[in-house]
């Protein structure tokens, strides 16, 4: 397991293997076979599997979502792509009213095996209509599954599971994860949808996050370790179904909870987790749980403001301090990474 792939390559490989494994799998979306191949995640697949299985579409998200549902009803297993989750809103009626309810509505007689990949934007001035992260919308709806992998290994394993699932699965990919690297096995493997991962074990506080915010969570955990604080970091991986028992078990042990949201916190993912813990583990809580997430404003384009939207390492660590009820020893508060409008130096826009 020493081979490293980027998140992009992991998605590409999972898709390639899914297309190879099952002739019913098909891949469609605006730009799928173009030279950029959905940020590299679909490159070369049309050449390999032909235009019948891997193809471009008109700019018509509502129609395309419906078409994918219809094809799924005949036994196909479509994967559709949206370069921004905002574009998917045009097809959300199909996803929510139709796909999510089909199996139930037909009394278990017909299902819609469909994967909807949507990219969540951030940074480089994408602005109010290209930077939202609407996971709590999808997570609210019974009948949908929602995965938000935080690293290449999970991206491949969860996408593989999603394609094999007989339900509509929404995969939300953070643009800033695309160029992150990590070990990825060559063969096919699945990560169970609905199971969280303990990304780091610890006893002092439970930090729950997912998707890109896991990068922040783990960074904070290693800083905390230097201060002698052992954080247990939970990577949700899926937000529906939600792995309640892993969360509850951890908080029972640590007695402290911090959630880091990728999207807005009001009526967000952290709200569900904090409520769950308050309902089921109230007595275990040694201090009030804390939700951290983007500020409750539309995302502005200018970096002067956009950088203020997102939780910083500083804010997260300060929240941990508050939760612990004591100062972090040996912290150098001045030396923390600042929020930037690019994930790394290789990212130079424009999209």
């Amino acid at each position, binding site marked *: 397991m020493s081979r490293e792939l980027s998140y992009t390559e992991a998605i590409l490989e999972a898709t390639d293997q899914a297309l190879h494994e099952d002739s019913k799998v098909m891949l469609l979306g605006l730009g799928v076979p173009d030279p950029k191949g959905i940020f590299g995640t679909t490159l070369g697949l049309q050449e390999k599997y032909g235009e019948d299985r891997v193809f471009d579409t008109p700019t018509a998200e509502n*129609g395309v979502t419906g078409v994918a549902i219809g094809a799924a009803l005949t036994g196909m297993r479509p994967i559709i792509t949206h370069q921004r989750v905002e574009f998917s809103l045009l097809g959300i009626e199909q996803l929510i009213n139709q796909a999510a309810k089909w199996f139930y509505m037909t009394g278990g007689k017909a299902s819609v095996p469909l994967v909807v990949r949507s990219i969540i934007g951030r940074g480089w001035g994408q602005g109010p209509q290209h930077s939202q992260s609407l996971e709590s919308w999808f997570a609210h709806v019974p009948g949908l599954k929602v995965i938000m992998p935080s690293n290449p290994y999970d991206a491949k394993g969860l996408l593989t599971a999603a394609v094999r699932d007989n339900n509509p699965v929404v995969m939300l990919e953070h643009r800033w994860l695309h160029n992150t690297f990590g070990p990825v096995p060559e063969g096919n493997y699945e990560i169970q949808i609905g199971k969280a991962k303990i990304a780091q074990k610890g006893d002092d506080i439970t930090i729950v996050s997912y998707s890109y915010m896991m990068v922040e969570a783990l960074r904070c955990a290693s800083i905390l370790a230097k201060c002698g604080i052992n954080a247990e970091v939970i990577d949700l991986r899926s937000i529906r179904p939600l792995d309640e028992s892993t969360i509850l078990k951890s908080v029972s042990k640590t007695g402290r909870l911090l959630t880091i949201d990728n999207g807005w916190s009001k009526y967000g993912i952290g709200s569900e987790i904090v409520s769950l813990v308050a309902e089921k583990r109230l007595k275990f809580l040694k201090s009030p749980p804390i939700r951290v997430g983007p500020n409750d404003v539309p995302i502005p384009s200018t970096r002067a403001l956009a950088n203020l939207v997102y939780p910083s390492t500083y804010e997260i660590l300060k929240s941990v301090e508050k939760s612990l009820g004591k100062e972090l020893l040996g912290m150098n508060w001045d030396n923390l990474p600042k929020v930037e409008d690019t994930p790394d130096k290789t990212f130079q826009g424009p999209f």
Partner: protein
Amino acid sequence: MKNLDPLKLYTDMLRIRFVEETISQEYSKQEMRCPVHLSIGQEAIPVGVSSRLTISDQIVSAHRSHAHYLAKGCDLKKMISELFGKVDGCCRGKGGSMHLFDLEGGQIAAVPIVGSSIPIGTGVALGLKRQKKPGIVVIYLGEGATEEGVFSESLDFAKLQNLPVLFVCENNLYSVYTPLGSRQDSKRSIIDIAKAHGISAISGDGNDVIEVQKLTSNAIIEINTHSTPFLLELSTYRWLEHCGPNFDDHLKYRQDGELSNWMERCPIKKLKLHLEKNHLINNRIENKIIEKIKLEISEAFEHARKSSFPDPTELFLHVYAPREIE
């Protein structure tokens, strides 16, 4: 291919009419507790269309789907039980009148969000084509549904992929209580919209089942020979209220005399005249047909009445499909 015998067309229309009338009469008993959109007056279209369909052809419908379902040969008992909310309904009671389907009969879906059935039907055709399965897909849609943008998106996609789709637009002049003129400019043409997308299209009298049958025949030939979609726009008229069991002429949203004119143009009456002229029907034959239909219907209602409601545990069943289905 179904029987092309006009008496069969007559029987099929009459059967749908009687089913709908029975629902209408029985509705006030409050056993069928779900919205119903009846098709009385519009029977010729589904019967004419389905008379040219085979078992491998699929249909997709919307909120007003009873007639489509029955004409295609789907199961009457499963339909009535569904209206009663019973566990042996086609959706185990979970869907109600607006979600009728029958995979064996060939109605793959009914979707009550206006327009949303159209891309789904288009996708069904894509699935058939990719799997090299035989058959075409008929997508029934109201003229109101052509106002939803997804209609145009679906035309574009169907033509681009040259899918075996027959779009059948039932133009009954109304969307709920709103007349055509408040929704579409008088110069707007559904036929021309299809043509502007590269799709052949033709209009006809949707109350003349023989004409519907002919137009469907020609359309299917075109679809199969040129592997291209086709659109039929058929004029017709709904007699009862948009949703519910009653007449509603007193609400005055219809033009004066409009309903009675259209009732004159009843598709069943029209075919009967034709049958009579050609001595294909007489009282004895007709009575036998009616008797058989009535028996079948009363059995279906009796069956539904006696059937059980789903068990409470079914509430949590079917939210997610398991890995292995079928």
